């Protein structure tokens, strides 16, 4: 099964990504003594991944389709630089079969699974068929491509509520919940239209709607020698518009027995596609702890650090070792979860205005430090947050002996984290850290959207805020007063400058 893979010792690796994940990969390479080659668009000349890599190649304009997504340019950089391996990170080309295949065809080690595994898991129906054959439980549903009558008949069998989903879908597009048989025909038509316009593929299918579901996923590691293990679960139920916002490991909802069962199923799913490298099997878990295969992400996951902290396994280093053809150094029984880790995704968006994405220049950046705090970041003071790329600009991960300690550390780390010049969702995470439902662990995937509000907390420090505003306005008034003093302005630019500099200190 591995004959057609190029697994070999490599000493120079090309990272075809940007932002925090490019930095993460470059750091892992430094730690293993592997040389690193970065690529950058116009927007990213001063980015951390460019500065931390050994070499950096410019690959074009800021829009990703003209730079980070242009396969020929990337392969050309590999050739020019002499890099013999490629890490795709997540997003961009990470789950494009064509890219993985192009790497293999060019004789490069692709740090990830075989293109065939990417292909199968990238297609909802093929993935479903493959894992069902391996005995993995899936959400009851139909295959795509049925006509309306067949759908309506199938719906009876599945039962309501159910979901109409786009076959080519993702990100919630073409998805419709249906609670009553009467709504079904309209929902089918609507979903088809949306899917057609979004993906150019109007096929839809039905799935049982799991209510009060939690999103829990299993991290898998598979080497090229047939060893497949799992590193326990991550709880990712805190989402908004199908975007994860906060993840933790372990899950407060998962006990030893459930973990063992879900882990075994995730390993079986990976084996079903001869998986190699790190991957994630996502499940929906209902209140009765029944779990259903959702999809497998055939790449490194944004939230991998929480697993790293509780298992003490460096997942990115392991991916690199596996790509070098090495067998896993540890077995399932060696994996121990200890302590608790929580990750808050820091996004450039305004939590006080419906999470509107925000752009701007980071004028001031103060990162939290101290015990139990890890930050994976791609931004820096002076960075321009442009609309070209993802709004996730950094990840704050806190570790504690138990969940309570991890939460307390996250609270204080969030309070220490200052990003000025662009709005972030840090206040959202601060609110979450005070929310009884989060503290008690009794949330599901609907919680953030339906039951959480940024207005839940008291305006405890209103007087202090008023004092700050008044003093700032007062100082500005004094400063402006000096500026417009008659006859003084022309000769006093230098004085003004020094005064202004002092004010800014």
């Amino acid at each position, binding site marked *: 099964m591995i004959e057609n893979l190029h697994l070999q010792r490599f000493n120079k690796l090309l990272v075809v990504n940007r932002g925090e994940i490019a930095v993460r990969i470059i750091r892992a390479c430094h730690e293993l003594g592997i040389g690193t080659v970065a690529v950058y668009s116009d927007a990213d000349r001063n980015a951390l991944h460019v500065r931390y890599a050994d070499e950096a190649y410019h690959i074009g304009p800021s829009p990703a389709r003209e730079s980070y997504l242009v396969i020929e340019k990337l392969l050309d950089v590999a050739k020019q630089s002499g890099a013999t391996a490629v890490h795709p990170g997540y997003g961009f080309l990470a789950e494009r079969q064509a890219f993985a295949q192009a790497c293999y065809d060019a004789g490069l080690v692709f740090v990830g699974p075989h293109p065939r595994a990417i292909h199968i898991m990238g297609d909802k129906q093929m993935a479903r068929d493959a894992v069902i054959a391996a005995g993995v439980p899936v959400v009851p549903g139909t295959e795509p491509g049925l006509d309306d009558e067949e759908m309506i008949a199938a719906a009876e069998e599945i039962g309501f509520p159910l979901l109409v989903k786009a076959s080519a879908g993702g*990100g919630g597009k073409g998805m419709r919940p249906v609670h009553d048989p009467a709504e079904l025909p309209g929902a089918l038509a609507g979903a088809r239209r949306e899917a057609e316009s979004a993906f150019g593929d109007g096929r839809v299918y039905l799935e049982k709607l799991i209510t009060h579901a939690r999103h829990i996923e299993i991290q898998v590691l598979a080497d090229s020698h047939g060893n497949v293990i799992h590193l326990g679960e991550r709880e990712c139920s805190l989402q908004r*518009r199908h975007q994860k916002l906060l993840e933790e490991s372990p899950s407060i909802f998962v006990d030893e027995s459930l973990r063992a069962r879900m882990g075994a199923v995730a390993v079986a799913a990976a084996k079903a596609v001869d998986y190699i490298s790190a991957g994630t099997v996502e499940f929906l878990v209902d209140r009765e702890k029944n779990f259903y295969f959702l999809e497998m992400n055939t790449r490194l996951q944004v939230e991998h650090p929480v697993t790293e902290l509780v298992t003490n396994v460096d997942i990115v280093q392991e991916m690199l070792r596996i790509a070098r053809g090495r067998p896993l150094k540890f077995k399932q029984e060696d994996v121990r979860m200890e302590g608790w880790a929580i990750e808050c995704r820091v996004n*450039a968006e305004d939590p*006080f205005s*419906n999470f*509107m*994405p*925000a*752009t701007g220049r980071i*004028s*001031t950046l*103060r990162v939290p430090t101290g015990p139990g705090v890890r930050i994976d970041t791609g931004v820096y003071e002076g960075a321009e947050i442009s*609309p070209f*790329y*993802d*709004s996730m600009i950094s990840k704050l991960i806190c570790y504690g002996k138990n969940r309570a300690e991890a939460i307390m550390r996250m609270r204080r780390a*969030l*309070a220490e984290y*200052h990003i*000025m*010049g662009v709005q972030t969702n*840090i*206040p959202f995470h*601060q*609110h979450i850290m*005070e929310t009884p439902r989060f503290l008690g662990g009794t949330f599901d995937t609907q919680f953030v959207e339906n039951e959480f509000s940024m207005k839940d*907390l008291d*305006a*405890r*420090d*209103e*007087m*202090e*805020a*008023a*004092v*700050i*505003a*008044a*003093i*700032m*306005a*007062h100082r*500005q*008034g004094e400063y402006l007063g000096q500026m417009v003093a008659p006859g003084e302005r022309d000769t006093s630019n230098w004085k003004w400058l020094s005064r202004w500099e002092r*004010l*800014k*200190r």
Partner: protein
Amino acid sequence: MKYIVTINGNEYTIDIDGDGQIFVNDEHIDADLQNLGDGGLVSLLVDRRSYEAAVHNHERDQWQVLLGGEIYDAFVQDERAYRLAKARGEQEDDTGIVPTKAPMPGVVVRVPVAEGEAVTKGQTLVILESMKMENELKATRDGVVLEVKVSAGDSVDKDAALVVIGDEAS
């Protein structure tokens, strides 16, 4: 100098005298505000309690204070401006011609309102796609749509005016 600061409808009278002494609603407080760098980060000690806050001078009299994970929208007027406004019964927010601007570059997905249509505060005026997300831009006041400047599919720059709201009379 006396200031009236309004936050969430609550008014604070804050007097800063010539010696920098500060009185809140006529009560003296021991306040020391330090700028930390030039990005609007400040340290406040008030009666020995310590606060770190981020301050942003939104526009003119509008100050935004981010403190302890909460955002406080503070409207700061000096005494004279406050009295004048009071006398005129002015309500800054709900009058005037208000253009809805693009908060970031993006592509217009939909404009669910038409010119001449009456809208209420909070109603969605434009759906803008940016950073892989669809964002709803809402009316900041009741009024009438005076002008729709864009249509679905348009690429717009940051701060481009998209829809203009005003009084029917304007």
